[in-house]
Structure formats: structure tokens, C-alpha cells
């Protein structure tokens, strides 16, 4: 394999790792928010809490 193929293979693996890692981190934030809401006696997240996640998603799209 030439160096370009090696780099691409490593890039793909790192992207896979990033996918798994990002998913874990982003889901953990949601789980934490849900736990905080439950601790306050609420079953659902309020609009301000939802907007935090929506804004984070928009910020990630804007970087593309």
C-alpha cells in the first residue's frame, strides 16, 4: 500500500473512532440533562434545556 492509502485507512479509522466517541459524549450530555431534570421533579426537559442541544447541533453544522 502506498502512503496515500495508508493515510486514508488511518483517516477512516479515526473517523470511526470519532463517530463512536462523539456519540458517547453527546448522548452523555443528554443523559445528564435528563437526570438533572428528574432531580428537580420534572419528567421532561424544558424549552431552554432543549435549545442548548439544538444550538450545539447548529454550531456543529456551521463548522462544515
Amino acid at each position, binding site marked *: 500500500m502506498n502512503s496515500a492509502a495508508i493515510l486514508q485507512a488511518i483517516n*477512516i479509522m479515526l473517523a470511526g473512532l470519532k463517530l463512536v466517541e462523539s456519540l458517547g459524549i*453527546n*448522548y452523555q450530555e443528554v443523559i445528564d440533562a*435528563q437526570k438533572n431534570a428528574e432531580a428537580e421533579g420534572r419528567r421532561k426537559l424544558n424549552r431552554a434545556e432543549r435549545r442548548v442541544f439544538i444550538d450545539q*447541533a447548529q*454550531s456543529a*453544522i456551521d463548522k*462544515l
Partner: protein
Amino acid sequence: MNGSTNVQVSAIATFASVLILWLARYFQPELMATTPEMFGELFTGFLIVVLGWLVPHDASVTKPLGTGSSPKSPAWLALLALAMLILGSCGIQHPRVDSVSDGIVVAAADIETAAQTTQQLCGNTQPGGECAPGATISTDAKNRLRDQLQTAQDQLLLADMALQADESVEASDRLARAEALLTMVQTILEERAR
């Protein structure tokens, strides 16, 4: 190390890294939640360097999956990457989704993940910039994925507004549209990451 050994050692290190991080997240979730965002990449790089130092030149690991002339084919790398994704996904705890409100938040987290993965595959350094030379996806593909994610995001915003206005049917409908678009993007990304 020669070329083939380089690739194999990098792949083995990446695979080992994901396995170790997965086990660490499973047994020490609170500790792992404090790690910085690029910790996985840092750890993988560290393992590659250590293994590269330990493994001798021309190490005899040229046929890891019994696939004959596989060192010239990236097929076994794709298998390793797929195994890595499956193993890693097993270690992730999924948030509770029993309301439209939860659905909106989880979909937003999924959009964020998809956007981050797209950026990783593209390697663009500036917003709206071109993908890095040799990137896994082209600039056009990145732009198409960005547009689809933006459309999903717009539906999510409408779902949030509808929920706030107590229009739960409209909110569910908008959320379903966002999720359908997101599923399409995720399928494309998973195919690219294999």
C-alpha cells in the same frame, strides 16, 4: 517497519485503543466523562507510536485474517473498522426517549454527532472550506451532507416551536421528518466510515 507492517500496526493500535476506551467507559464512566474531547485520538496516536517502537521491522503479521494477499487490499482494514464501530457502539448508553421533548434533544445530539463525523471525514479547517487533500469525502459530498443536516435541523426547530405551542401532533410530525433525514445522513456516513 515496512509499509504493510505500518498499516497493520496502526490498525491493531486503533482497534486496541477503541477496545480499551470502551472497557474504561463501561467500568469507569464518571472518570471517562472527564476526559477531553480529543482523548481518543491522543490515546490511539500514543498506542501507534508505542507499538511502532515495539514491533520489529518486517514483523510477520502480513496475513491477519487468512486472506492470502490481503496486505495489498484494504478489505481487512474495513473489517477492523466495522468491528471497531460495533464494539464502540456497544459501550454507549442511549438516553431515554419517551416524549417528543426527549426525541428532539436526542435528534439534536445525533445531528451534532453526524456533523462532527462529517467534519472528521472531510478534514476542512474553515467553515464552508474545502476538504483536505486525500480526505475520505469530497467537498461536494460534504456540502450535500451539510445541507441535509441543516434541513433536519430546521425541522427540529419547527418541532420545538410546535411543542412550545402545545401542538403535539405537529411537533411529532416535524420530529419524524428530522429523524428520517438524519437516518439518511447516518447511513451515508456509516458507509463512508467502513
